[in-house]
């Protein structure tokens, strides 16, 4: 990965030297006013290092790592696009970072204005009526969205207990007159794992439905599974095979006729941005991933941010608080009697939103559409460049990502997707998403995003082509890959059998 810096896997605690200090206030430590019985009696086992020791330790660690800045990272469903540097600078302005979450509204006008304006812009982009930027991750957004649906049905039931007219009827969600306990959520088998996990976390039963052979929802199967108990149908558009759910309007119609809601997982929104408004497809609730579509960095696994957008009927249930504009100033409203409540102690991953907002500022309608266009062209380009050696799941054009699998020549030699993925690392490419979606045997899911150049993709296709021929000539060599990383394949079995998760 980096020949010049020798890999060094010593832990910081192993480099520790007694009495070394990385930071000091240069004053005698004051006496503690802590009663004896309430005081700590041991010394925490933390490294003792100079500041320079720490800087060198972590800088070296950063070198044993693939990242978007250094490597092509075609992870399907993760949208590893370039993270503009301007986002980092403007989100770190002192005015933003020094503001306490409980600062008086008058002292946080800048941040409040951004969040308010961002919500408006995202509503327009998604064709939805309102939103909340509270959730801090896609899964957190999903959970919030499903809680909104739950509350919606609870309130419908409650309103039926009293003879007064239903208050919430101006929305686009058709309302059924019967009182039912809707405790099922329909999820296609191609869905992200977070969808069923979210459903059960919110107390719903997951009803899995099998996809049709073309990877889309099988309308007949769906019809058979929609019942008066169906609360929500959760869909990913385009789906995890990179295919647009062409029957989406019909699906939403079926759901609404049944009194159910449609939730859209927006993980793949990069394919639709500036091109299609999900609200117009008929979805009632959707989430967005700022760390995917809106270019905020993934940070090695987070933090992200995951706002949700809703149709009018669901607005009263949005999580507390809401930001409101009165005259020229912005305020935080906590007085929301029908809200599902708080989903996080403080406001959201605000600094992540600031990055996404800067990105939004730089993109007018024309530039937004270019994101979708180029992400779709790039994915199809890779797909067509590889389709003879790594047959795609579907022969039709894909949207922003494609799902392939090793050809028969490879599987006959015992080469698995994992081997191809590991060998790619040797060529300086992060592996695509593998073994997902689970409905595709030996899946290789590639999402190049709009920011990769043709040159990079040509080189990637060449590397995949080379691996294909290597695998036939010397399958054992490929099975032992990677050969050039700081470590060889790791023993995950022992790691799980005898977990060593701390020093």
């Amino acid at each position: 990965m980096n020949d010049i810096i020798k890999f060094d896997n010593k832990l910081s605690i192993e480099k520790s030297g007694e009495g070394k200090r990385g930071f000091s206030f240069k004053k005698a430590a004051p006496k503690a006013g802590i009663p004896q019985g309430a005081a700590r009696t041991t010394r925490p086992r933390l490294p003792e290092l100079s500041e320079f020791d720490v800087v060198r330790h972590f800088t070296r660690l950063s070198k044993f790592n693939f990242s978007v800045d250094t490597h092509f990272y075609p992870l399907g469903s993760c949208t590893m696009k370039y993270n503009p540097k301007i986002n980092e600078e403007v989100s770190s302005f002192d005015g933003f970072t020094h503001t306490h979450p409980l600062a008086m509204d008058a002292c946080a006008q800048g941040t409040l204005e951004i969040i308010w304006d961002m919500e408006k812009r995202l509503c327009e982009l998604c064709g939805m009526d309102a939103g909340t930027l509270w959730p801090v991750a896609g899964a957190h957004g999903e959970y919030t969205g499903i809680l909104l649906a739950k509350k919606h049905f609870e309130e419908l039931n409650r309103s039926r207990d009293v003879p007064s007219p239903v208050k919430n009827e101006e929305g686009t969600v058709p309302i059924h007159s019967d009182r039912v306990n809707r405790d099922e959520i329909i999820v296609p088998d191609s869905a992200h794992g977070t969808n069923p996990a979210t459903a059960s976390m919110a107390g719903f039963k997951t009803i899995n439905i099998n996809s049709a052979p073309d990877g889309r929802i099988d309308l007949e199967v769906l019809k058979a599974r929609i019942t008066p108990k169906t609360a929500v149908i959760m869909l990913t558009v385009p789906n995890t095979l990179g295919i647009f759910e062409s029957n989406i309007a019909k699906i939403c119609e079926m759901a609404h006729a049944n009194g159910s809601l449609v939730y859209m997982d927006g993980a793949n929104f990069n394919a639709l941005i500036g091109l299609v408004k999900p609200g117009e497809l008929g979805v009632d609730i959707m989430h967005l991933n700022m760390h995917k579509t809106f270019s905020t960095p993934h940070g090695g696994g987070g933090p992200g941010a995951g706002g949700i957008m809703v149709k009018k009927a669901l607005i009263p249930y949005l999580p507390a608080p809401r930001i409101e504009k009165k005259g020229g100033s912005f305020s935080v409203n906590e007085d929301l009697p029908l809200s599902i409540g708080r989903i996080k102690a403080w406001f959201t991953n605000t600094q992540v939103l600031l990055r996404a907002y800067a990105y939004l500022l730089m993109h007018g309608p024309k530039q937004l559409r270019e994101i979708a266009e180029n992400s779709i062209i790039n994915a199809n380009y890779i797909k067509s460049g590889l389709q003879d050696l790594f047959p795609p799941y579907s022969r039709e054009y894909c949207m922003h990502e494609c799902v392939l699998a090793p050809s028969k020549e490879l599987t006959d030699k015992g080469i698995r997707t994992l081997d191809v993925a590991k060998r790619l690392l040797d060529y300086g490419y992060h592996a695509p998403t593998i073994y997902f979606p689970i409905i595709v045997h030996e899946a290789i899911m590639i999402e190049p995003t709009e920011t990769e150049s043709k040159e990079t993709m040509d080189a990637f296709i060449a590397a995949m082509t080379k691996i294909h021929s290597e695998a036939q000539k010397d399958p054992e060599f490929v099975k032992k890959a990677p050969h050039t990383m700081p470590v060889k394949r790791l023993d995950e079995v022992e790691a799980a059998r005898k977990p060593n998760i701390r020093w």
Partner: protein
Amino acid sequence: MKPEELKYTKTHEWLHISGDAAVVGISDHAQHEMGDIVFVDLPKVGSKVQKEKQACVVESVKSAFDIYAPVSGEITEANTKLSDEPALVNQSPLENGWLFKMKISAPAEASDLMDWNAYQEFVKTAAH
């Protein structure tokens, strides 16, 4: 235990019956398909299990498998050796790698389980 002495489910559990007591494990075929077992979430002694409902969970590195009770009854013992050595399920699925013992509440439920020959046939056809 010899494979011929056991009864099998379509979900690849085996059952050894003596009177109203029984031992449950997973077949050699099943452990092979699951790969290296890293953890067994054992059932609580005294808990009631129902035929074809989840009784415990076996985990490999990248998957988790529900283990279903072949018949209804009450758990009388769990193989606590597996807590430290889950690999026993791979090494000795029919002997040291048994999962739990139970007291059968409805002996008639065992009648639809497969014998060794039928199970072998089942595995063969299921593979195609």
